[in-house]
Structures are given as structure tokens and as C-alpha cells.
């Protein structure tokens, strides 16, 4: 999604009131952003705390600011700067965390971002998790307060067309309950069930914003009394599963069964690719198929 992000930034945000800061990352992705932004593009170096403070200063002077890094360096290292400098003042800074979840795979656990959405959501930051490349353009139409954009990989089935953007949207129809997938996992679920007959599969919903108020009535109507599956490349605490469960409890909506699959961190103490970790958590293509068939996940 890095290239789709760069393209959207150039086409939509290359304006005099935008700055782009990076923590020394963006090789083979942000070169064109650097070229077109000119002196509004700043490589702030390997100093993320300072980068957020500088972003706050720029935003206080009327600029909208992107602050880009690998996801954990974007939200975890400068957590207090985000909390105090951005959120307490509600400034228009978009934190861009590349490589959400296990996306940095072999690079190891320091480069994974498994609790980012909960951490940012708890501060009141608007959390965006695009599922598909096209989502990014819709997400960047406006940001006027602290925002966290978690980039991953678009893994939709080849040759498929993505429905028009909405924070919650059905991407694959089905009649056996509902799968709710956070961001790119919607593409995984879509791949897993594309060849299964409509009458035998659950529908797949892509969720790209962490905001309980955006859960549509159409979803709630659809899921009532049926099986609900929630999958996310994020820890359970503060994740999508908890949000959905709370929202339904508050509205008094009951489901016939609730299955939640999420990032288990590193259950075997071994490390590998994003696919390896997804398989360990039962959120890869095979894992989703077996989940729908009611099989217990083992790693």
C-alpha cells in the first residue's frame, strides 16, 4: 500500500498547507513525494519523539502534517508526544505507520505492530486501517485532527473489484453468518471463501475504521441471531472483536455464535514471514476456511 499511499498524497495533498515528515524511512516509495513536496518534505532522521513535536509545532501554525515511519516506531516510540502534543491540542497530524500487524515478518518482533490500533484509539486518535489500495484516497480526503493510518498489503483475490469505500462494507455476500475482518484481512477472508457457494459461506465485511458510531444498521440487522466471526491482525485487548462485542451488547443484539481470531503474538517463540505468523494465529486463508467449518485452531 506504500505506493498507493504515495500516489494519493501527491494527487490530493500536495498543497502549500501540507508538510510531510519521515523518520528516515520511505526508500523506494516516497521519492516522488519528496520531489513534489520540496522543502515541505522533511527527513527528520531517526528521532521519532522530536518528529512528533515538530509536527505539532507545524500544525499549530496552520499546517496539516504527515508523520511517517514503520508502524511501531510511529506510534509506540513517541507515544507520549502523540498523547500530549497532538491529542490534548487536537492537531491535524496524520501518523502513518507502515507495516501494520506482522507485515514486517522476518524483520522480527520489534518491527511488528500488534497493539497499535488499541493504543491510538485509547488516545482518541482516529484509526484508519485500509483494506485495499483504493481506500487510501477516500481516507485522505480530510484530516483535521489526530489520525493514525495503518498501512499493510492489499491481498484481494485477483481480478475482483472492490466495492465503493465505506468504513464498514460487505465485500463478499454469503448466507451462513458474517465475517468481520479488520483491514487487509478482508482480502484474506475474501480469498478463502470466494469459491464457496453463497448459501454455504458467511458474508465478508471489511472494517477500516475503529469507530463504534460507524457500525451500520445493515450490519447489525444482518448479524442478529446468526454466527459472527471477527478476525484481526491485532491483539485481542482493545481490538476490533472487543469493539464489536461491546457495540452489540449495548444495542442488545444477540448472535448464535461468536468466534474471534486475533494476533496471538508469538505463541511458539519462533519468528517468520507475515504468512507464518498469520497461520499461527489462524487468520490466513486456510485458517479462515477451517474457522468457518467450525474447526478448532491449533498452532
Amino acid at each position, binding site marked *: 500500500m506504500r505506493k498507493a499511499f504515495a500516489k494519493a498524497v501527491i494527487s490530493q495533498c500536495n498543497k502549500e498547507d501540507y508538510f510531510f515528515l519521515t523518520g528516515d524511512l520511505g526508500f523506494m516509495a516516497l521519492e516522488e513525494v519528496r520531489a513534489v513536496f520540496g522543502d515541505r518534505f522533511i527527513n527528520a532522521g531517526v528521532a521519532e*519523539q522530536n518528529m512528533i*513535536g*515538530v509536527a505539532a*509545532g507545524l500544525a499549530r501554525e496552520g499546517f496539516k502534517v504527515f508523520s511517517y515511519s514503520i508502524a511501531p516506531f510511529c506510534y509506540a516510540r513517541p507515544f507520549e508526544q502523540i498523547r500530549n502534543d497532538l491529542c490534548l491540542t487536537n492537531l491535524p497530524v496524520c501518523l502513518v505507520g507502515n507495516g501494520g500487524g506482522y507485515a514486517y515478518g522476518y524483520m522480527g518482533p520489534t518491527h511488528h505492530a500488534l497493539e497499535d490500533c488499541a493504543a491510538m484509539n485509547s488516545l482518541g486518535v482516529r484509526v484508519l486501517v485500509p483494506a485495499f489500495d483504493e481506500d487510501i484516497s477516500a481516507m485522505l480526503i480530510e484530516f483535521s485532527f489526530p489520525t493514525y493510518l495503518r498501512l499493510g498489503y492489499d491481498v484481494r483475490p485477483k481480478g475482483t473489484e472492490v466495492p465503493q469505500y465505506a468504513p464498514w462494507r460487505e465485500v463478499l455476500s454469503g448466507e451462513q453468518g458474517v465475517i468481520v475482518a479488520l483491514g487487509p484481512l478482508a482480502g484474506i477472508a475474501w480469498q478463502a471463501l470466494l469459491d464457496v457457494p453463497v448459501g454455504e459461506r458467511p458474508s465478508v465485511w471489511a472494517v477500516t475504521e475503529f469507530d463504534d458510531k460507524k457500525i451500520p444498521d445493515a450490519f447489525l440487522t444482518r448479524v442478529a441471531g446468526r454466527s459472527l466471526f471477527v478476525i484481526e491482525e491485532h491483539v485481542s485487548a482493545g481490538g476490533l472483536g472487543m469493539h464489536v462485542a461491546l457495540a452489540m451488547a449495548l444495542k442488545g443484539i444477540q448472535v448464535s455464535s461468536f468466534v474471534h481470531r486475533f494476533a496471538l503474538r508469538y505463541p511458539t517463540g519462533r519468528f517468520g514471514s507475515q504468512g507464518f505468523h498469520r497461520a499461527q494465529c489462524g487468520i490466513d486463508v486456510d485458517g479462515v476456511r477451517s474457522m468457518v467449518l467450525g474447526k478448532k485452531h491449533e498452532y
Partner: protein
Amino acid sequence: MNKDFDDLLKISKLRLLQMHHESNCGHIGGNFSCIDALMTLHHLVMRPADCFILSKGHSAGALYITLWSLGKLNDSDLKTFSKDNTLFPGHPSGSGIPNVLFPTGSLGHGPSLAAGLALAAKHKDLDKQIYCLCSDGEWQEGSCWEALAFSVHHKLSDLTIVIDQNGLQGFGNTEDIVSYGDLTSRISSFGAHVQRVNGHNYLEIIKSLNNQSSERPNVLILDTIKGKDLHFSGKMESHYLPLSEDQYRIACANINGEGDL
């Protein structure tokens, strides 16, 4: 000397004492080490477009009094200091207070915020100076050095970092805890233009601010006394403890030039 400003300083210090005494609030030592500099900057140096960030947020009282002396806050405002339903907590909230741009209190944030403001001013080609007041212990935070390196690299000469070097921090002497030895040479080695003066002498402060670099960020290190004029002047106790009735009376006498401290 400027008699009017001398008088204003005295009145403001007495008002600071009164406010802290009425609220039974601590952190008074760090307020009295920097109030001379705060008043000097705001009354004799800063222009309307200039910005100020109190990175050492625990000296909020001195900043509120300075804003009061400028007519931006009134006595009713000060009465609520550090009390329920106030806009003026013990560390500035960053909302609802004139001239306060950011919430501060966690140390090490101000230099980066100031660098961002200075970068914006430079980009817009504005004639605008950004002042940021830090404590000396605050420079144990790595983020200060990140901001300093960034500011030097970007030649943010419209940035002036002022350091209240009172030598005492939360639980001891700065020299005994994590010492930089000579902070002046350490900061100078990063490429900033550094000056060091008596922080309780406004003529020295003004003179140094008239001698700033137009090529590099400026750092002004102030030699100060924590809790100056108080009964625990220069002592650790002044960091946290509020004043008793007797201590308040002694401090007022000292500020009025009637004490024997």
C-alpha cells in the same frame, strides 16, 4: 536600571507568593528561579508575534503571574489556580489560557514543539522569534538533544532555548544525579550559539538576547537560584513543598527588601 520594571517584578513576585500560598501548592522553588527571566522576556523582549513555550511546565505559576502582569489574566483567574474547575492547573493545560500554545509538564517536549514553530515561521518567511524555557534537569531527556540536533541542522536561528540552570531537580542535585558537567560546552558542541548569564539580572539577559546568532539556533543558559528569596533558597525542599504561614511572611519580607535572608 529600570525602576518601573523593578517595581513590577517585585509586585509580581509577591503575587506569585500569594497565589501559591493561597492554593497551598508546591513547585515554588522552580518558579522563583525563572520568574525574572519570564518577566524579562514577556515585558522587555518579546514582540506581539513572538511565541513562548514553557517546557518546564512545573513553573506554571510563574507563567500565570507573568500573564497576569501583562493584563492577560486577572485576579479571579489566579484565585482558581490549582483548584477544582480551574483553567490553571499546576502544569499548563494548553487550552483556554492566553498565549499558551501547548500542554506542558512532561519534560523534554518543549524544544521539539518550539522547533516545529520555528520551522513553520522559517517556511513562511515570518519575522518571528520562538522562545522555549527549559529546566537544566530536563536535559536528561533524550528528546531535548533530538530537538537540538534537528534545530541546528535546519539552522533555526529564530529559535531561542532558555535553560533555567538552578542545579536542583526532583530528588537531588543535578550534578550528583546525571551530570553533564558543563552544559554550556555540551550544547555548544552540537553547533548552537550558546551564552551563559546571571538569570536573575534582566540587564544581562537582555544584553545576551541582543547578541544572538542569525545563523544558528540560540541557547541561553541562566545561572539561577532555586527558590530565590524564599526561606529554602537553593535547597531541595523548594522543589515540592508549599509555604507555611511563617515562611510566607519571611519570603514577602525578603522580596520587599526587609528580610535578612
